[in-house]
C-alpha cells in the first residue's frame, strides 16, 4: 500500500517570549506524531482548538520545520526535498481572507496555475468549472477585494483544487461558510477523492459530523498527540456496547458532575450549564447503571427535564479518550 503522508516521531516546539525578564517558555504543539495516510484516502484530523492540527499541516506543506522527527509527503522527504514535494501538493486554510484584492477572481487563480506550470487554456477551463462547483461562476471577473469573506474563501478552495495536486491539505475548509456552502464543499471534496484515483486529501476540522460523514479515516488529536486513528465506524465501535444518554436537568447548583462519575457503571460524564438548566451526557458501561444515576438525582433534588438515548459519535470517542468534551478542552484554555 502506498503512503501519501508518513511521519515519524514528528514534534514541534514553539519558543514563546513573554515579558522581557521572563525566560523563554516552550510550548509543545506536536509531540511524537506517527501518522500514515494512504494514497487515495480522505483523511481527517479531528481535535479541539490548539490541538496542533494547523501546526501539523504547516509542517507537511513545507511552511514550518519540525523541531524533531521526519516526514514524507508524496514519496519525498520534507526536510531534504521540499522542492520535490511542492509541485505535488497544495493547501488551503479556511477562515481567513487572503488574496490579491486588486486582481479579479480569474486573475488570482490563473496566476497560481501559471506558477504550477499549467497551460493557460487548461487553467481557464478548470477555473470556470471549479467556480461553478462552489457557486462563484458569475464572479469570474469580480475584483477579489469586492468579495465577501466567505466568497473569498470559496475562491481559495478553488485555488487548492485548481492545481490538481497529488496530496491536498485543507485546514478547516468549511470554517466561516454558511450551511449550504459547507455542504456543497464537503460533497465536492468527497467526489474529488472518489473520482480521481490516487489523489489524497487531508483535512482538519473540529466539526464532528464533518469528520464522521466525510472521512475514510480520522485521527483524533489533542494536546499535540494523536490519541486514536481509524475509520469513524471502528473508532465508534468500542463505544457501541456502551449506552450513551443525554439528559437535560435542572441546574446542578454547585454540585458538580463528579458525584455521578463515582457511581459504578458510569464511565464518563460531561456537563454543560446553560441558562436555567444543565445538560449532562453519560457514557455508561451498561444501561442498568442509569438507575443509580436517576436515584442520585432524586437525592440531590435535581429534576430531569429531558432524557435521550443516542448512538455514539466521534465526540463520545473524544470524551472517552480524554475525559473531556472538545468544548471543555477549548474552554479550559491551554
Amino acid at each position, binding site marked *: 500500500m*502506498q503512503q501519501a503522508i508518513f511521519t515519524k516521531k514528528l514534534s514541534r516546539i514553539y519558543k514563546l517570549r513573554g515579558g522581557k525578564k521572563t525566560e523563554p517558555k516552550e510550548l509543545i504543539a506536536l509531540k511524537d506524531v506517527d501518522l500514515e495516510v494512504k*494514497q487515495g484516502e480522505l483523511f481527517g484530523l479531528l481535535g479541539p482548538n490548539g490541538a496542533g492540527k494547523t501546526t501539523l499541516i*504547516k509542517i507537511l*506543506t513545507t511552511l514550518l*520545520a519540525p523541531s524533531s522527527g521526519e516526514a*514524507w509527503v508524496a*514519496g519525498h522527504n520534507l526536510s531534504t526535498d521540499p*522542492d*520535490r514535494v511542492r*509541485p505535488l501538493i497544495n493547501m488551503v486554510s479556511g477562515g481567513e481572507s487572503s488574496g490579491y484584492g486588486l486582481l479579479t477572481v480569474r486573475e488570482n487563480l490563473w496566476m497560481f496555475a501559471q506558477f504550477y506550470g499549467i497551460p493557460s487554456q487548461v487553467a481557464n477551463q478548470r477555473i470556470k468549472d471549479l467556480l461553478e462547483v462552489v457557486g462563484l461562476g458569475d464572479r469570474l471577473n469580480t475584483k477579489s477585494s469586492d468579495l465577501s469573506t466567505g466568497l473569498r474563501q470559496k475562491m481559495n478552495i478553488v485555488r487548492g483544487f485548481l492545481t490538481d495536486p497529488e496530496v491536498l491539505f485543507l485546514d478547516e475548509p468549511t470554517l466561516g461558510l454558511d450551511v449550504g456552502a459547507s455542504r456543497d464543499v464537503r460533497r465536492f471534496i468527497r467526489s474529488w477523492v472518489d473520482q480521481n484515483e490516487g489523489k489524497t486529501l487531508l483535512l482538519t476540522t473540529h466539526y464532528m459530523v464533518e469528520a464522521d460523514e466525510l472521512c475514510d479515516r480520522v485521527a483524533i488529536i489533542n494536546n499535540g498527540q494523536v490519541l486514536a486513528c481509524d475509520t469513524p465506524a471502528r473508532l465508534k465501535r468500542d463505544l457501541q456496547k456502551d449506552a450513551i444518554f443525554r439528559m437535560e436537568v435542572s441546574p446542578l447548583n454547585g454540585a458538580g458532575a463528579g458525584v455521578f462519575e463515582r457511581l459504578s457503571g458510569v464511565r464518563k460524564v460531561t456537563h454543560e450549564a446553560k441558562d436555567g438548566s444543565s445538560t449532562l451526557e453519560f457514557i455508561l458501561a451498561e444501561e442498568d447503571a442509569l438507575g443509580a444515576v436517576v436515584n442520585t438525582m432524586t437525592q440531590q433534588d435535581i429534576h430531569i427535564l429531558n432524557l435521550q438515548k443516542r448512538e455514539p459519535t466521534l465526540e463520545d470517542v473524544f470524551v472517552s479518550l480524554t475525559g473531556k468534551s472538545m468544548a471543555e478542552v477549548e474552554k479550559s484554555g491551554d
Partner: protein
Amino acid sequence: MTTKTSAYKHSLIPQNPGWLPRTFRFAAWLGWQIESNWADPFVFAIYSVIKPISSAAILVVMYSVITKGAFENPVFPYIYLGNAFYIYVGAIMAGISWAVIEDREHYRMLKYMYIAPLHYPTYLLGRGVARFLTGSISVFITIAFGVLFLNVPLNIYAADWGLFFVSLGLGVLMLGFMGLLLGSITMVIVNHVWFLGEAVAGALFLFSGAIFPLEVLPAWLRPVGYAMPLTYWLELMRRALIGDVARAFPTLAGFSNMELIGILLATTAVIGLAAFLTYRYCDYRARELGYIDRVTNY
C-alpha cells in the same frame, strides 16, 4: 522509506522543468498588476512625478543656498544626476524587500506563494521588474526637469548610450540582488520591519557618492563607499550621460570606464552570491521560526 513510497516517483514531473523563467515571468506580471494599479491617476502623479521632482527641488534649493547659486559648477550636475539615479535604489532594492512584507502581511499570500513550486528568490527578483519600470518614469522625469529648467548639461547626441545601457543593466541587477538580500532578512524579522528597505536606502545614500564625492566623508568612513557597487554604478551613469563633467571629480577619476565596469561586475557578483547565501539561510530560519505565514498586527 523510499521503497514504500516509490510509486509517486513515476508520476512525478521531472524536477519541475522551466520553473525559473516561469517564476520570473509571472512574478513580474503580478508586480506590474500591483504597481500599475493606478485606479487613481492622482496618486500615481504624486508618487511618480511630484515626489521625485520635489525631492530634487529640495536638493537644488539647498545647493543654491550653500553655493550661492553656482549652477555652472560641475558639482551641480554631479549631485543632480546622482540624486536622480538614486531613485532606482529606493524603487528596486527597497521595493523587493517590501514585496515580502506586502505578501506576508497585507495580501496574506506569502505562504501560498512559498509552498507553490516556484523559486522564491527568482520570484522576488521578478517582483522588482515593475518597480524598475515605474522607477524609470520618475528618473526620466527628474532628469528631464533638470535639463529643461536647471541647465543640467546633458546633450543626448554626445551621451555614451552604449555605456549607459550596459551600466543601467548591471546596476539594475545589482539593485535586484541587494533587494533580495534585504528581502531575505525581512523574512526572519516580523516586527518593525516596515521601514527596513527605506532605512537602508537612506543610509547608503551618504556612502555612495550620490550627492557629494566620497572625499567629503571622514577618512575612516570612505572605505564603506569604496566597497559598495552603488558608488561605481552612479559614477558610470554620470559618465555615460555627461562624461567630461563627471570626470572632473577626484574620487574615481583614476579609473577608466572599463575598469569601473569591471569593478561593478565583480562587486555585483559578490553581492549576488551574498544574497543567495543569505536567502538560503533566512529561508531555513524562517521555516524554523514559523515566520512564513506570520502576520504582525498593524
